[in-house]
């Protein structure tokens, strides 16, 4: 595995362009655009304030930099570096800012979710959308970029509006049967919209594109409900992760439960493989352990070698019991992801923060459990083949594939930690590269 050299960025703002050619990073108020293969700086832009959010447009021509504190959005062009665009929300404030799928409109959510303003870069039109809902995921674009679903709250009732992204016309507006809508998500084929309720009610409603209610699913009552949902890439399965540490999968034909995956504390399933990360700390022999020396050596001193070992079943998974008095307890399935061929599903149970569970969807059973030494921060599937990359905040990158599991140390100086970001999605890229940017390096590094 080849690693590029280390370069800094703040706030985890580091994105590869959708066409896979450029890499944009933000350092404080500067935006740096580099070429992906050579990492040469191509453009350098200066924004008016520290950038809080950065996003590429879908055609990789423009970059949006949002500064929430100043309620400003600046847009930069790659083709014409002189081109500039500044959107000022003024006293309305700015809470979130994003591109529309066509790459020519910017949707700004004002403070207190008073409204969503749609600014156009190609015409003088401005559209306003009232009463957007402030929830976990109130706005979702369909994958082909033609429609956008927006959750609204009017008269203490939840509604969903479907707009056509071409001309921002309202296509459908319907009330949903939820108590307190928590999120909306389109299926990858763009024909079904999944709407789920707050965690106090376990309810998932499936609406067709034209607003008809196709089906409702509710697994149980009273206990805390849905924590996360994920569609499979073929739109065949809808995985629902809930607070009772189970994942339920619905099939797209009958919208009934296909199977229920449990995450028990003792893994005794005979076909599953448990990979456990074993660390071997070796201290670099160093006579002169002055502070300076320590820090410059930094990496070699604290570098730990780690490898995976296969544990014989049954295996006890370490469980962290959450505080029962607090809201949003750290229990339940918080993140799930299907592999690109819909064959595998990776899940993470917040109760067992250092484990990632991989399920085989073809055979509907547990395939592997990866137990790390530190809590898992995030994981991503390779967009081309069934390969899972995950990171725990240590200086290593872990990769699982059906053939096995490896841990790759990332050459990091000092105590950097690793985060994994989504790989570029374009089909032209033949060798997908996993982007492993480093979080802000330890600030006590002395010169």
């Amino acid at each position, binding site marked *: 595995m080849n690693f590029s050299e280390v370069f800094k960025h703040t706030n985890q703002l580091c994105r590869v362009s959708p066409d896979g050619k450029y890499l944009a990073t933000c350092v404080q108020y500067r935006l740096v655009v580099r070429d992906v293969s050579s990492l040469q700086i191509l453009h350098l832009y200066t924004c008016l304030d520290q950038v809080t959010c950065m996003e590429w447009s*879908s*055609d990789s*021509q*423009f970059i949006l930099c949002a500064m929430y504190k100043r309620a400003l959005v600046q847009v930069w*062009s790659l083709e014409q570096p*002189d*081109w*500039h*665009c*500044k*959107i*000022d*929300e*003024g*006293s*309305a*404030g700015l809470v979130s800012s994003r591109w529309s799928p*066509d*790459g*020519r409109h910017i949707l700004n959510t004002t*403070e*207190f979710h008073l409204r969503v*303003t749609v*600014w*156009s*870069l*190609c*015409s*003088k*039109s*401005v559209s306003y959308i009232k009463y957007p809902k*402030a929830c976990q995921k109130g706005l979702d674009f369909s994958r082909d970029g*033609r*429609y956008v679903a927006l959750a609204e709250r009017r008269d203490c009732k939840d509604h969903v509006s479907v707009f*056509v992204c*071409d*001309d921002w*016309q309202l*296509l459908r507006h319907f009330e949903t049967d939820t108590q307190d809508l928590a999120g909306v998500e389109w299926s990858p*084929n*763009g*024909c079904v919209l999944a709407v789920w309720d707050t*965690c*106090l009610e376990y309810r998932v409603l499936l609406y*067709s*594109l*034209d607003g008809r209610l196709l089906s409702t699913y509710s697994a149980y009552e*009273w*206990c*805390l409900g849905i924590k996360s949902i994920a569609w499979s890439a073929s739109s065949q399965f809808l995985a629902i992760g809930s607070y009772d540490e189970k994942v339920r999968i619905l099939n797209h*034909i009958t919208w009934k439960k296909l199977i229920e995956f449990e995450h028990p504390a003792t893994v005794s399933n005979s076909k599953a493989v448990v990979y456990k990360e074993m660390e071997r700390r070796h201290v670099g022999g160093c006579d002169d352990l002055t502070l300076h020396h320590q820090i410059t050596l930094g990496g070699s001193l604290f570098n730990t070698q780690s490898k995976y070992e296969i544990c014989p079943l049954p295996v006890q998974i370490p469980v962290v019991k959450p505080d*029962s*008095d*607090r*809201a*949003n*307890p750290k229990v339940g399935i918080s993140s799930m992801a299907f592999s690109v061929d819909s064959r595998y599903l990776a899940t993470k149970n917040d109760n067992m923060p250092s484990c990632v569970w991989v399920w085989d969807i073809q055979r509907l059973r547990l395939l592997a459990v990866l137990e790390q030494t530190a809590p898992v921060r995030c994981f991503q599937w390779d967009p081309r083949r069934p390969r899972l990359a995950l990171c725990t905040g240590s200086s290593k990158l872990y990769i699982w594939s059906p053939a096995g599991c490896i841990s790759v140390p990332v050459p990091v100086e000092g105590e950097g930690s690793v985060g994994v970001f989504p790989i570029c999605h374009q089909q032209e890229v033949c060798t997908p590269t996993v982007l492993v940017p480093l979080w802000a390096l330890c600030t006590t590094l002395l010169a």
Partner: protein
Amino acid sequence: MAESSLESSNMSCNSSRLMYPSRNHTHSSMPLSKQSYSVLSAFCSEGNITQCISYINQEMSSLGFPALCNELDSGGDLKAVSVLNNMYELLQLHRRSLRALEELETEQLKSASHLEHLKLCNSRLKEQLEQSRRESTGLCERERQLQMKVKSLQNCLKNEKEEVQKLQNIISSRASQYNHDMKRKEREFSKLKERLNQLLIDKKDKRLAIEVLNYVGRSDGKRSLWKTGKTEARNEGEMYQTLLNDYESRQKELLVENAELKKVLQQMKKEMVSILSPRKHSQKGETIDDSLELPGSENEEEVCDSSRETLELSCEHAREQLTNSIRQQWRRLKNHMEKLDNQASLVQNGSLGDNEVISRKSHEETVEKLKLEIQQCKDFIQTQQQLWQQQLSCPCDDETAALLNDCYMLEEKERLKEEWKLFDEQKKNFEKERRNFTEAAIRLGHERKAFEEDRAMWLKHQFLNMTPFLDRNKSQSALKSPEASEVTVAPESQYHNAFSTPKAAPAKIPSTADLYRTLRLLPDHGSPRSQPKNGNWQDSDVILSRDVSAKSGFLGAADCSIYSLVGTESSPN
């Protein structure tokens, strides 16, 4: 007195009866009250008065009464007083005993009645006891039941408590979630109020605006359209189109799946039919159900007419028929298999025909053969493994281990070593020759100098000694010798050329290529023999010899020094 006498006679009768049981027993049957004299006379008669008297005396004295009469006084004179007294005493005694008897009788009656009473009481009490026992068992039973009930109720209570606890937990978690959300909303609300206040106070509202240098075109190149009814309709249309496409694709997929499954079912049915039909003909002794015949024939027809089926199977009726027929076939197959199993078990008892027996036997034989083969293979693998293990673990000393490590390359290594040796030798030789060359060059230089000096002197001499005739001869010889000298110079110059570099830069060793080229080892001028100059014969000599040695393997072991070369200048090949 008569009564008393009667009584006394009775008594004496009794006593006599006792004493003399051999006396007339007929007397004993008569009641006492009806005793007559005749009885008395039995005891005491005229003859035995004294005996009687003595006897009675004895009895009386034994009873504690005074003696009846003096003994042996003239043959039985009884003292009337003592007799009367004794009689009186006896009567008293008798009365007393009667009274006692009466009392005893009354007592006895009393106790009998008492006993009866007690018995009654006892039986009553026993009954009561039984009853109470029964009651108590009944009560015990009830108690047990009630205890069970209590236990179950306690369990229920526990469960209910647990549920209540769970619900309470849920409620509390929901409450905390609500509180959390409420707080969040409140905070937002307060922020909103603040902002509103701020805005009211501020009044100068920053206009929201967008500053764009120039508007960009749309990514797909089209121009944006106005919102009209037509566009709305178009959007609707597109939406429905998308949905329809999705449904169509799904339906196609499902159709394809359906067709495949139907094909599989058909195949299965055909195979089942084929399995079952030949069997049916071979079983002669079996009773074939008529009901089975008909579907069988039907099935054959169905099997043959597949084209009709593909059309028919699209409708539900035909589908049902297909599934039913498959189920039927499956049942037949199952029955058949069961029959086969039975037959197989019967075969073990040797009660059926030859066909199955042979087939089973052959089957078993083949199985045995295969097992043997497997065993052999396993053994083979085992031995291989052992040998392998041995090989791996055997080399205990380093040398053999080192040897065995690369045993495949051993031969080549040896060859390589030899070649290296050769190479080293040749290198050494080459170095030596080079050194010799340099020495020779230096020597040559010296010699040349000397020669030049000689020449100069000789020329001088010539010059000084020049005469016409002598001159001619001398000139001829001088011509010759200069020729010779030229000739000799030429190769020398050749050598000089060759060694110009060491002359110019003595430290610099000529490169091997240069050396070879000058020595005409490198074929840049064609074959070494085509050298016009005479002096080069020597070179060719050297070259040839060198070539030969090169052929044998680099610079040969022949130690040809230039010195010897220079010496043999007149020997052409």
